[in-house]
């Protein structure tokens, strides 16, 4: 590589967000989506029928108004003294009544729809979540958490908004268009010819403008996304920015992104804001045409003034839904896309069922045996080849190897988070594939590298594995994990909520809490995944001491970097590029002068 000047402070233009793994996107046929949505609606059949009925009724009744007002105007007459007051009162009264009835029905309709939506949203989220918890671990290793979350929260909302409003709105539009048209035909068929001009005009315009604006709006959100991403990263990089004194350059990078976002926004708005006035223009033109032709017809005595008034009002209602059609279809598109994402998640392949004859693993003694195991994450790319191992009850198995060598793979296999391709793994002589997953996994207790705590009290977090534990046992576990006195110092002690602002719990302390959780479990096998890498050496020393007491008589699989601790292991599994390349006791491995020995020597190389 040459030593040319590089783009020092410049920001790379590529939008990496697109490169991230998104949820699977194979297309689902539109018809299938509609059918499945229909099934959700079908579960609320009574509510839906009621909603349709109310929609038809309220929009039809609402449409009688203009006709009645026209009749009232005709009954008034053209000049003084011509008014037929009984008729005027009748029509105006009916008109007022029709509006009140239509509005009340409209309100009842909203309530019905809301109830229906509530049921569907709830049901849909339940379906998604129930599927989510049944998915195999590799699903979560593969896909981004943010994306899954947005499906459950926003996509479900989008689908329902569409189901509840768009569906009824389309229905309502159909009623409005039909009734208005019939009304106009009944008033003066020849005047409807005006729409021969305006409807094609609207259609052509809508087509043109959506074709024109869609890419612009896409670019607009993309640029805004890039800007937001940059701002988020730079706020997170405040320490290095300040330490290296790079504020000015960071702001320069920001200005570039900001400018791009602003330009994209303005360009999109240039065309986007045309739509409203243009549609208004087409409406005004149709009003003009109706006025002129209506006036001419009136001159020939072919139509009354009231009729023109009604006609004008109907023409507005008639063109309303047609104008909105474009936006409704736009919303439907995004609703379908959202529904597809929701269904795709629901369709994701769950963890295979336990075999029908699967037995429950009981009275575990902790004898683990692997024989000729082959495994690959991706088909055709083998990771583990012909691996065999035997861990006697109470043995300490250390898994060692350099960073990124794939030391967690073995844990994935032992706990059946992933299935092996060939060979067998047995616990107490029973093949783990003939056991129920829950009993197999329940036989292990574990402390993972990233300490997982949920929003809830410290107490609940420790007792999570064992809800019926007595407070004494929970405290005992916390003491054993050397975190008791820290917890006592928290504002509400064991009742302190983890995750609340203002509660300051460091990484190391969080890990100690998960260790306490693991200690509470009476499982016979233990998995420690770089468990203490976030804890300082002193604390680690004590934890390991406590762990050893806890491990007495239990089988333990420890993933650790610290050679001093794994030296005392019964068996060391040396991992390199995912495969287990050496195994044996420390002394034996050292004598082999192989990979392990070279790793070990590196520890004592000084400056």
């Amino acid at each position, binding site marked *: 590589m040459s030593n040319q000047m*590089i783009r020092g402070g410049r920001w790379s233009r590529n939008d990496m967000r697109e490169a991230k793994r998104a949820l699977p996107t194979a297309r689902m046929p539109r018809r299938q989506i509609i059918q499945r949505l229909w099934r959700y609606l079908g579960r609320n059949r009574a509510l839906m029928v009621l909603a349709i009925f109310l929609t038809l009724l309220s929009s039809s009744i609402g449409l009688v108004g203009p006709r009645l007002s026209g009749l009232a105007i005709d009954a*008034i007459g053209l000049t003084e003294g011509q008014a037929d007051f009984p008729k005027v009162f009748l029509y105006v009264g009916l008109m007022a009544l029709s509006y009140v009835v239509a509005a009340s029905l409209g309100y009842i309709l909203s309530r019905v729809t*809301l109830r229906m939506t509530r049921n569907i949203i709830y049901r849909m989220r339940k379906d998604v979540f129930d599927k989510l918890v049944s998915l195999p671990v590799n699903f979560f290793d593969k896909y981004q*958490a943010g994306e899954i979350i947005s499906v459950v929260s926003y996509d479900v909302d989008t689908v329902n908004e569409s189901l509840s409003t768009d569906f009824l709105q389309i229905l309502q539009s159909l009623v409005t268009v039909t009734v208005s048209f019939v009304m106009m035909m009944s008033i003066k068929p020849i005047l409807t010819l005006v729409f021969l001009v305006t409807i094609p005009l609207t259609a052509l315009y809508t087509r043109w403008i959506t074709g024109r604006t869609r890419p612009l709006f896409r670019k607009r959100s993309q640029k805004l996304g890039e800007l937001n991403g940059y701002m988020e990263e730079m706020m997170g990089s405040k320490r290095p920015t300040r330490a290296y004194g790079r504020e000015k350059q960071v702001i320069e990078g920001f200005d570039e992104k900001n400018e791009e976002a602003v330009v994209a926004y303005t360009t999109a708005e240039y065309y986007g804001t045309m739509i409203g006035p243009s549609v208004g*223009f087409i409406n*005004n033109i149709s009003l003009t045409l109706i006025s002129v032709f209506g006036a001419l017809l009136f001159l020939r005595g072919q139509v009354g003034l009231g009729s023109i008034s009604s006609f004008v009002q109907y023409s507005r209602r008639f063109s309303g839904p047609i104008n909105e059609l474009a936006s409704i279809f736009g919303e439907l598109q995004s609703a379908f896309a959202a529904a597809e994402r929701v269904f795709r998640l629901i369709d994701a392949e769950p963890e295979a069922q336990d075999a029908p004859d699967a037995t429950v693993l009981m009275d575990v003694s902790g004898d683990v045996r692997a024989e000729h195991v082959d495994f690959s994450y991706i088909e055709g790319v083998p990771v583990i080849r012909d691996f065999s191992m035997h861990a006697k009850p109470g043995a300490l198995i250390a898994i060692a190897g350099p960073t990124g060598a794939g030391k967690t793979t073995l844990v994935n296999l032992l706990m059946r988070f992933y299935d092996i391709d060939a060979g067998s793994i047995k616990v107490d002589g029973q093949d783990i594939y003939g056991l129920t997953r829950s009993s197999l*996994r329940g036989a292990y207790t574990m402390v993972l590298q990233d300490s997982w705590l949920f929003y809830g009290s410290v107490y609940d977090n420790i007792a999570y594995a064992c809800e019926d534990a007595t407070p004494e046992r929970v405290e005992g576990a916390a003491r054993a994990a050397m975190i008791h006195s820290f917890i006592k110092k928290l504002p509400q002690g064991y009742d302190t909520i983890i995750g609340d602002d203002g509660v300051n719990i460091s990484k190391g302390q969080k890990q100690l809490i998960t260790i306490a959780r693991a200690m509470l479990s009476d499982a016979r096998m233990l998995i420690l995944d770089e468990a203490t890498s976030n804890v300082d050496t002193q604390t680690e020393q004590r934890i390991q001491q406590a762990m050893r007491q806890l491990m007495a008589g239990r089988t333990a699989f420890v993933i650790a970097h610290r050679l001093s601790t794994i030296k005392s292991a019964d068996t060391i599994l040396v991992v390199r590029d995912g495969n287990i390349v050496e195994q044996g006791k420390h002394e034996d491995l050292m004598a082999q002068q192989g990979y392990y020995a070279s*790793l070990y020597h590196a520890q004592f190389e000084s400056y």
Partner: protein
Amino acid sequence: MKKVMSYLMPYRLLLSWTLFVKFIASILDLFIPFILAIILDDIVPQKEPRLVYLWGGLMALCAAASVVSNIYANRLAATTSSRVTRSLRHDLFSRLIYLSMAQFDQVSLSSAVSRLTTDTYNINIFLNRTQRMGVRAPILLVGGLVMTSILDVRMMLVLLLTVPLIGLIVYFVTKKSVPLYDKQQTVLDKLVRVLQENIVGVRVIKALSKTDYEKDRFDQVSGKLADVSRQAGSVVALSNPLSSITLNLGLSLCVLLGAYLVNSGLSRPGSIIAFMHYFTIISHAMFGITRIFIMSSKGIASARRIEAILEMEEEQGQISAQPEDSPYHVAFDKVSFSYNGVEDNLRDISFTLKQGETLGIIGATGSGKTTLTNLLLRLYDAQKGRILINGQDIRAIPRDTLAVRVGVTFQSDFIMAATIRDNIAFFRDLTDEEILQAAEAAQAMEFINEKEGGLDFEVESRGNNLSGGQKQRLLIARALAGKPSLLILDDASSALDYRTDASLRKALAEGFHDTTSIIIAQRVSSIKGAHKILMLEDGQAIGYGSHEDLMRTCPPYREIALTQMGAMGEMLEDEGLALEGSAVYE
């Protein structure tokens, strides 16, 4: 709001022009129904088709003029609002970037990000829409009322009666719904949190067979969310039917009144027809005004949040102090510091380092190791004592000078979505040669060469497509690039295996002997070759000296060293009780 409004000042001419154009456009819109009334009431009786065409043509002309001016005004509005947003966002971003860490901690990262993204976006929308609707809606409302009063003032008064009623409806609905929507947001946050916990903790949940428990937990939040949404929806659903009933009853009254007026020769039926048109316009205007109110409450809230940041004073100014003659590159002189001002996080720390020397810091979690480096980088200012660089108090050194030739890795450092090259250079002007050298020393070349494109490999945000060890080596390379004269490595090698760690130390010793280094580590092997080692406990120094000194004089240090060097296994057998007896470092 004042401060944000001042951003509009440079655009006041453009703004007035926009509003004027919008004003004209709205007036034109108002003329159209008026012409309709003229045609029906005045032209038709003259029985002149030619006049009908003429007035019809005028109507079409008004419509055309209206569409042109509306589009023009909308474009102006979009330009102004996005320019204002651009400068507002720039100032907000710059201010946040220049805030001291103590101030930034107060603001919090998530809040800073939401102010930059959501709040500036809200302001943009608010400025854009108010320019468009803010003029149009009131003009349509007032103009509609004026026009109707020209047509017939008595009928207009009936219509006017409905306006305050609708205002009341909107007010009460908004007042009731806003807290419900807040509640909905809170419950939605909870739902997202449960989801997140389930995704991150999938292994733990499966291992502990807590699936059903988690289903229940989700079910509760999800049910609550659905209920709250329904409640909020039910309240909002009231506003449309109620307003519509009020307006339409007003309209019915107008027609009735119109009947009397026409019958007694005081009005004409064409006016009633035009009246109904204005009626639609006025009701649209009413809804438009309501929307503006909702939008402005959001916009004002966002403006306040932005102003709160803009009004923060810049902290950590420069003091004036004479440099002293000093043989030391870095010196801490009885430094004490506390984040919250209550409990000391560091107390009475002193040490000195000559150019090219190395200080190793070791100590328990929370003992103040990171705090010490934060002070040295002047991310925070010490409350007591002095920190000197080449004899000069760091508070008297200009920030730019202080930052020159510093190299540092932080715990939980951010990796950006950018190329490996940009991540190492981190906005500094560095040549490829310098970057490659740094990557070489950081033991990062091995994985960089494996990546597609080498230095041009695109790293994902937060380094999601790198392993833990790769991220650390990338950050070390960043620290080493640019030949720092002061290097701080905060637990930089915890994810590295011994071999890589050893090679790194070797490279540092060979290639950076003029660099003064501060290395925070958990392994004695990482620091035992340092010129000086500082052992911290609860913010205080419990040992200071070379490895050999500390092995002799500092029992806690010796204990750790022996444990880690492998002798502990045997020691535990022999003196197991001794360890328990000294269990003081929880």
